[in-house]
Each structure stands twice: as C-alpha cells, then as structure tokens.
C-alpha cells in the first residue's frame, strides 16, 4: 500500500485541526466580546475566589495566580492612565474575519485625554508573518469636541484619511496638555489677581481680560490659542489685544500700539507665565 492513501487522510486531519483551532478561538472571542461584568461583580468574584482558594489551600496548593494576575494588570493599566493622561472609559471589539493568517477586528473606543473627550471607531487588521504579526488600521473614524477650533477639525479629518491612529493619540495628548496648562495658568492668575483678571469664557476659554478698576474703558485681552497643524505638531500662540477708550492721547496710543510686540518679545525671553505676570503687574500699577 503506498503512502499516498495515508496522505489524503493526513491532509484532511491537518485541515480539520486548523479549522477546529479557528472555530474554538472564534467561539472564545465572541464569548469574550459579548459578555460584560460590572466592577462590583468582578470585585465580588475576586473575594469569592480568594475565599474558595484559601479554603482548599491546606498547605499544598499555591495561592491563586488569577487574582494576582488581575491585580498586576490593573496596576499596570492604572499607572498608564495616570502617566499618559489617556483614560479609556469604554472599549468594545468585534471579530469580523478570522483565518489562519489574518484577523480583522472592529474596535469602538471612547475615553478622554486630560479630560478632553474622544470617541473612535476603527478596524484593526493583523497578519501573521513568518517572524511577527503586522498590524494596520483601516476605516478610522474620530469624534472630538472641536468647538470653534477649525484647526482641530482639519487635523482630525487628515488623520482619519491616513488612518493614523498613533499620531492622533500623540498629537491629541499634546494638544490636551497644552489646554490643561492654559487652564491652570488662567486659574492661577485669576486666583492671584481676582480684581484685575477676568475669565469671560470661564476656565476653558482661550482668552483672559485684564481690567484695572482705576482705568475704566481700558482693557488688555491676552489670547492664548493652541495651534495644531495637519502633521500633528502643537504650538501655543499668544497675543495681546489692547482696548483703549477714545479719549486717550496720541502719545499713549503709540505706546499702546507697541504693547503687543513687547509682549511677544517677553514671551520669547521669559516664557508664558512670567510674561503674563509682568504684564499684569505693569497694568495694575499704571495710572
């Protein structure tokens, strides 16, 4: 009897084993993706599990790895969230396609970046190569609150087009950090000089107004925008807009017209906080 007879069966056995592996993985995937347990349920289960295991321990079974593993993973996740400022509030995925070499999963993700919310959907294609697994993003869809910031919308569309999820996160994080820094700085000056500094659009606004009660009608507006270009580079851009009442003489007017340029030089020399501090001090002393 020649071996080709066996080969037919052995080939089929190999195929069936592969199919079975795929099907069981698919079954587990769907089970995982369609189940949900709340944090309370998880906590309760953890306590139950520990108790059960301690009871069965009797000195020879080692303590469960499962609760230790869970704790370690939760610590890692919590650290990453604090460190990067990216918090994931919900994550769901669905396996769309699974063969021996390719897996396509659709992900839905929402969270916030330094308290700026985002919502994403994308498909992740993973291909098994000889040495490693390669991953690529397709069908990326991003929703952020861009408000009046047209630049942010442009950046988001450009990123969606290129499927550049990594760059989105890096640039959006940077943008969010600048916004946070701006907010903290504004609040700091509001607290330090409550009678002079006004936040007309609250702490999330992009400008503050300086008003000296001794100089009615005279205002200085400090505008602080966070620019983000299509390549994802974020830069803060500050400017000074003085508002002067009509009665002011020509001499003073010249000095005031010069103010924005001086402010920009101060920014370059001393940085943002010091420049604003100096400006407020000069403003509050002026008669």
């Amino acid at each position, binding site marked *: 009897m020649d071996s080709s007879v066996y080969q037919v069966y052995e080939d089929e*056995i190999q195929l069936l084993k592969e199919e079975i592996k795929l099907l069981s993985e698919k079954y587990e995937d*769907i089970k*995982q993706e369609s189940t949900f347990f709340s944090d309370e349920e*998880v906590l309760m*289960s953890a306590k139950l599990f520990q108790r059960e295991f301690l009871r069965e321990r009797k000195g020879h079974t080692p303590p469960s790895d499962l609760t230790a593993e869970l704790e*370690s993973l939760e610590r890692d*996740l919590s650290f990453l969230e604090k460190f*990067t400022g990216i918090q994931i509030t919900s994550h769901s995925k669905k396996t769309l396609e699974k063969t021996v070499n390719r897996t396509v999963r659709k992900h839905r993700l929402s969270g916030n970046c330094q308290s700026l919310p985002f919502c994403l959907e994308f498909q992740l294609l993973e291909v098994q190569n000889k040495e490693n697994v390669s991953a690529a993003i*397709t069908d990326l869809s991003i929703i952020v609150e861009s408000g009046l910031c047209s630049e942010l919308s442009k950046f988001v569309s450009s990123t969606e087009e*290129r499927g550049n999820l990594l760059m989105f996160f890096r640039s959006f994080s940077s943008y969010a950090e600048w916004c946070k820094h701006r907010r903290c700085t504004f609040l700091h000056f509001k607290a330090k000089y409550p009678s002079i500094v006004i936040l007309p659009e609250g702490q999330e606004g992009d400008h503050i107004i300086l008003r000296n009660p001794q100089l009615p009608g005279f205002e200085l507006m400090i505008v602080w925008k966070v620019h983000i270009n299509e390549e994802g580079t974020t830069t803060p851009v500050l400017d000074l807009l003085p508002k002067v009442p009509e009665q002011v003489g020509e001499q003073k007017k010249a000095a005031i017209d010069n103010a924005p340029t001086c402010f920009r030089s101060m920014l370059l020399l001393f940085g943002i906080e010091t420049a604003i501090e100096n400006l407020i001090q000069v403003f509050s002393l002026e008669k």
Partner: protein
Amino acid sequence: MEEGRNSGEKETALGGRSLTATSQDGGGQISVVSLAQGKVEGGKVYSGDGVLGYLEMLEAQAHELGLKQEEKEQQEKKLNRLKAKVQELRTRRDELRAKVELQEKRLLDKEGVVTDPARPSAQTVLEWKVKSIKAMLQVFYLTGISGKLTKQGVCFCISTAYEGTYLDSYYVDLLIKPEVKIQRHSVPIFIPLEQIAKKYLQTDIRRFLSILSDHLNAYVGRRHQADQLEEHFSDRIEGTLQRNSLCNLLVFNYTVSSDNKTFPFNVRLLYGDLCCSLPTEAIISCTPGTLPLLARMAAAHSNTFRQMALHKAFDSVINAKESQH
C-alpha cells in the same frame, strides 16, 4: 501425501500443513521427485539437501508470508485509525460550528449583551476581566506609549507607526530609585538617546518619552518610505537606493524622458530635522545640466520630494506629464 500448495489457501496454514505433511510421511520422507530436483521456490534455489533444505525453504516462506500478513494488518489498522481520527475531528468541528452559529444567532436576536443563563462562576468572571484588561493594554500599545510596572521601576514600550501601519516597537527599562536611570533599552545606536535622556530624563519622564518617540517614529517613517520606494519602484530606479542607517540621507538615480530623449537625474535627499519624516533638502542634479527645461523639471521634482511622502512623490514625479509652455 499431501502436496497441498494451493495458492488459494490461507498462507498461514501453509507452513503448518507442510510440516504436518512431512511428519505424516513418517520419518520425514518427501516426494522423491522434488527431492531429487532440488526446489525452486520464489526464485530461490534450495539445495536439494533433502528434508532440511525443504524445511528451511518452507520456513522462510512462512516467515515471509507472515511478515506480509503482519504488514497488511498494520496498514489496515493504521488506515482505520486515520479514518476514525478523521471522523472524530469532523464531529468536533461540526459541534463547534453549531456552537458558533448559535452564538452568532443569539447576538443578532438580542443585539447586545448575552449573559449565560447559568450563573457564571467566580473564576469565569475573573478570567473575563483579565482578558478585558489585556485588551485595554493592547489599545495603549496602539496609542504609542505603553508599558509594565517592574519591581524596580517601569519598562516602557514605544510603538511606532507610519500612517496606518504599525512598525517596530522599542522598549526602555527604567529604574526609579535612587534616581531615574535607563537600565536596558532596545533603541538603535544612531538615535541620540543619551542626549535626550541627559536633557529630560531626570526632570520630566513624559517629555523624555515624547521626544524619544518623535525621533523613533520619524526614523521608522523615513525607513518605511525608502523600503516602499524600493519595493514598488525598483524598476524605475537606476542602480540601488543608497541610504545611511538613520535614513536621513538618501541618494538614488532615475531617468526622465522628454522629446524622446532620456536624462539621468540624481536625487540627494537630506532630512535635516530628525523628528520629521519629510526631507528638508532635495538636491536634484542631472547631466547635462544646462537645459532650461531640465532645470524646470528638477525644481518641480525637488518641490514634490520635499512635500510628499517619498514613494508617493516618486510616483507623482515619474507619471507627471511635462506640459509644453
């Protein structure tokens, strides 16, 4: 006396029968004719050494036939085993198929969360949670900075991508006490890791990682563009693409045709900004270099190379139609 060597009979019996035949003869006398002539059996000539020879031959026959029989049995057994295995696997596969189909149907019907009617065990819940957190950690990989806490600090993983494709990832293992120090890393030697660390590691780890990530992503992006150029346009490039390990200097040649004449162009791309994946300079030289038409083309090509990704720029450059002014 039985000569009985019927080919139709069972071979296992043959040996026995022959021996019996000889013993029945009483004293081991075999047919005189066969004795005298020797025996030719199966192509082997046995010395007509009487009974012994004949016995030897029969024994050998029996042995051979026995072996063949055994082999046949083994083959049949193996075949049956394989058939049974196939059957078993087929059944298992069909069961799994049915299970998965039921799952999918349930999902469509309920459109959302499916909870097991039986109350899940504590272990099931915990296993689910572990998988769920691992999935979230994988998402952090996609954001560019992920990592694990270690006994002495943190091991960060910086992932890189060019547009939608994820490329290499690099790790930096940090010690936290007594001061922040890099214990181990997989950053290539041509990335200025020490300079960046010296400037930022002690004061702002986040900034350190961010800048390192910029360098790595830009490097990987440049390398990827060069690889794509080689992969897709090797037939349009004369010779080979030359590059340094940091991939911030690329040199290659291609030909441009105009008026049925071909001109060789040489491109030298310099990426002055290590955190950028577009060139800061694109120097195009051609021989002969004096024709104004060529100068115009060179300028246009230089612009294209500086504004677009390399493989896309090249595609645009070789497919551009020279417009006649």
